């Protein structure tokens, strides 16, 4: 499939602070990519460059267009929810629908109204009268009714309670994702999006430190829970990370045969969060076993 986002040597500096330090990235259409990184790693800066909200250095094409010079044209095919609560507080729900229907050629008003009918949001309410969860539902209803080719979500569920967060990702998958759209999202709640993603990327200090598809991740990485007396044997296989838990060592391996590991202890596929910790630890103290 064609590349939805393609970046080469993407750089962005705010004064002396380097927010993006030469990023190369290629995202094919039809993928769901999670961009994960600590605070200040450059996630939002990268998304802003992709959405044409900030200038950058280097090469960047989104759906074949330069986002900085063609933002308004690009936004017919891209929709995004940037952070939370950016809907204007003074606007009425009905005005919001009128406005988006007026300016967006790919917006389906009936679809948005159908989403809203499932919520307690009334057309006459102003955004400032809605709860945080309702504002997110409203924004999501708008975005889902836009027939976009790329959807970008920056911490879409920040500050929401568990119930809303679960609903959010459920409707994202069941109502929106059809296999041809591309979704790019960032979040701190890695566990919640794990089952949604097809690809994962870790970003740290403006650099991409890890980029794998989920299939690759599941076939290459294994986590083994090893009893202390077998730990030296396990360490000989060069784990990329080790942590302690419940009196056992939990070791993370990259590309080690599962059969061999099974002899040492209980083997399972690692979660993204564990992998993230391992990769970040390797970044902090570059060891020979650093994952690249």
């Amino acid at each position: 499939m064609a590349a939805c986002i393609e970046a080469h040597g993407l750089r962005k500096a705010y004064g002396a602070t380097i927010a993006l330090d030469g990023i190369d990235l290629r995202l094919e259409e039809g993928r769901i990519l999670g961009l994960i990184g600590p605070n200040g790693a450059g996630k939002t800066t990268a998304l802003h460059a992709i959405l044409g909200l900030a200038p950058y250095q280097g090469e960047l094409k989104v759906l074949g267009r330069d986002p900085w010079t063609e933002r308004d044209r690009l936004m017919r095919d891209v929709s995004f929810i940037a952070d939370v609560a950016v809907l204007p507080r003074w606007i009425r729900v009905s005005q919001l629908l009128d406005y988006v229907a007026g300016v967006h050629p790919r917006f389906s008003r009936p679809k948005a109204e159908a989403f809203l009918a499932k919520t307690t949001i009334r057309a006459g309410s102003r955004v400032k009268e809605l709860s945080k969860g309702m504002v997110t539902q409203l924004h999501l209803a708008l975005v889902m009714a836009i027939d976009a080719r790329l959807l970008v979500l920056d911490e879409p569920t920040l500050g929401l309670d568990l119930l809303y967060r679960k609903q959010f990702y459920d409707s994202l998958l069941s109502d929106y994702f059809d296999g041809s759209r591309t979704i790019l999202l960032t979040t701190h709640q890695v566990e919640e999006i794990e089952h949604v993603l097809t690809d994962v990327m870790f970003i740290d200090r403006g650099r991409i430190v890890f980029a794998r598809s989920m299939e690759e991740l599941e076939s290459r990485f294994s986590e083994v829970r090893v009893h202390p007396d077998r730990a030296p044997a396990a360490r000989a296989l060069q784990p990329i990370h080790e942590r302690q838990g419940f009196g056992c060592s939990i070791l993370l391996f990259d590309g080690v045969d599962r059969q061999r590991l099974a002899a040492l202890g209980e083997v399972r596929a690692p979660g993204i969060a564990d992998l993230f910790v391992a990769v970040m630890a390797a970044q902090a103290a570059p060891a020979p076993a650093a994952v690249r």
Partner: protein
Amino acid sequence: MNAPADAMPEALAARRAAPAAPPAARPMYWSVRRELWEYRSIYVAPLAVAAVFLLGFSISLIRLPGKMRAAMALDPVRQHALIMQPYHLSAMAIMATMVIVVLLYCLEALTGERRDRSILFWKSLPVSDRTSVLAKASIALLVIPLLTCVIVVATQLVMLVLSSVVLLASGLSVTTMWAQVFQMSLMLLYHILTVHVLWYAPIYGWLLLVSAWARRAPFLWASLPLLAIGIVEKLAFDTAHFGALLESRLKAGPEAVLATARSLPIDPGTHITPGTFLASPGLWIGLVVTAAFLAAAVRLRRTRG
């Protein structure tokens, strides 16, 4: 999770064939409407002033027949002044409101959306920064002046009808009054178009530019730098050209608008001189400066997320 592979090309094809670009006027139209939704004071304030004025005027109607009889004894010029006084007052009250509303609007227009971060939402839609800024400029340059004209004329019409009823009931004539007020309305339209739209355009442009630039306190940023330039010029060269330039822009229009200088445009005996006004270089320099200010505001809105 994934749609069947053979369904994908069809979904893509359907999306490619989706409706073409909307005509360029549509985003503009909706951007202007959004401004009216957000800044309701644009029409609420002048309407409220008009309503209060009409209330006061209705009360004054009791004294109207007596006043008209007294006016009969006066010479034509003073008679005219007496009859027209409430109409002048209504026009001035509503126009003063307009000036306040338009200044506050321009200072807030591009600051507010960045302060509440809703700019991230507006920018997620296919509306260019140029369209957004031009929509805001057209509120100041077209919508508010036009609305003011309509409200002033409507208020005066109500006043005329009310006075006519009272005067006719007292057996007095109303024809001169109607003719004089009609003439005044035409003068008012001319005044608003020449002074408040064309001559003041660079002021609105400047305020919109500051509003796109300032993170907070746009009023201070709009006024203090101008003061600073004037002071520095005075200290450095002991001249006051910048101050003179500002003053000529701020006073109620260039002398070229009307044949009799320094008089109210709605006074009797003034003659409009549109030819001289259109030929004055100050007008055209001002419009070029306005365009430059607005272009800079568009650039700033793009970079200042």
